């Protein structure tokens, strides 16, 4: 139990996907202009990443490893993730239209979110078992969501500040992310 809690704390704070692992940065900077979108995106990522982490784990353990074709990992994972995302989109549209309006529009963005592929590959590298993989994927997604939501609220606030012209947009976003990363460094060493 403690191990699982540590995995979560590690994934959310200590080794945050954004600030420590540098994964999923494109959507992080792309979808963080508005808080509402950021919340939607976070939810979508939490859902898809947990699902993708689980499925890729199963594929890896029961297909790629026994057949000794580990080198197909990248290509197989990305194929699975791409089709999974599209399936989820289609299914959600049909089964839960309300949910789709909230989250669905973010799903295409997730295909190219390298956090999904990255975390899937990492949980294989870390030799996690199934439960640990699920927790790790979920925690990483949670860390992504946390970082995204804080960041987007800060960026919304920046809209009303008098940022010097040269820094408006991406540069100031980078600097904010840098300062946030410094704050996140305070959590280092919390999980050994």
């Amino acid at each position, binding site marked *: 139990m403690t191990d699982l809690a540590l995995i979560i704390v590690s994934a959310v704070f200590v080794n945050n996907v954004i600030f420590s692992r540098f994964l999923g940065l494109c959507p992080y900077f792309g979808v963080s202009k508005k808080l509402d979108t950021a919340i939607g995106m976070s939810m979508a990522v939490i859902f898809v990443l947990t699902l993708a982490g689980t499925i890729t784990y199963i594929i890896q353990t029961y*297909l790629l490893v026994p*057949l000794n*074709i580990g080198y*197909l990992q990248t*290509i*197989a994972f990305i*194929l*699975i993730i*791409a*089709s999974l995302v*599209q*399936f989820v989109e*289609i299914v959600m*549209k*049909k089964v839960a239209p309300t949910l789709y309006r909230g989250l669905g529009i973010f799903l295409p963005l997730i295909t190219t979110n390298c956090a999904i592929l990255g975390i899937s590959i990492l949980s294989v590298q870390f030799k996690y078992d199934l439960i640990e993989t699920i927790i790790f994927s979920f925690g990483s997604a949670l860390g992504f969501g946390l970082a995204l939501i804080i960041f987007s609220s800060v960026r919304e606030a920046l809209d009303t500040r008098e940022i010097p012209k040269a820094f408006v947009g991406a540069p100031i976003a980078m600097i904010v992310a840098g300062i946030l990363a410094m704050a996140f460094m305070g959590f280092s060493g919390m999980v050994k």
Partner: protein
Amino acid sequence: MFEIVIPGLILAGFALISASGLFVASKKFYVYEDPRIDEVEELLPGANCGGCGFAGCRAYAENAVNNKTVDPPCPVADAEAMQAVARLLDLEVEVKEKQVATLLCKGTHENSRSVMEYYGIDDCWAAMLVANSLKACAFSCLGLGSCVRACSFDAMLLKDGIVVIDEEKCTGCGMCLQACPKNLLFMRPVSGQVIVTCSNTDRGADARKACKIACIGCMKCEKSCHQNAIHVNDFLASIDYEKCTNCGDCVAACPTNAIEMRGQEVYVTA
């Protein structure tokens, strides 16, 4: 050989499953979106200025494709681009002349004296809450630059208490028109060189008192015009650019220099 074919078959199986699944799904749930929307959007300038009245270029493109129309034309795009859009949609497009924003006031500090010391916020709309005019003329440009800030093309700047417009940079998007609380800006075709630089509708004497170059409604210009292109209403002259031939007779006739002739060269005071 075997170790090459087997992985191939496995991945092919993967692809088979996902492709057929997606194929079935996409058949069932396919939402048609006209690919021409993208193409139109690509032809547009992408300034997202909203000058056309739609929420950005994408919305304009959607409207253009769905309703098969380029009306209103994009105010920023040049004629060539609009023709390209029209060709794409198999439409005839009427080429309109470039429009530029024009300030109908020449109430510089020198011409219309300040009657107060304004301490409030540097914004025309905010100033209007404190005083309707900062100068002797009630119709004058406030000179606080709300239009300058509204311009996305860097085409305006403040000088001597009024705004001057760089007609080369002006795209005619019209955002500044809405930003002016005094409605002093209007669009004129770029070839129209004669401008009545005044908006004062007070009687002659009052207007004269307020500003050195005010239009006093004396009708001399109306009489001088051979094209019937200039008319005085409410003690203020205005020009019909459809008829005006830039002959300059009214400019010569005006006793207060309220009518201005702009040269062939673009008026840039930057």
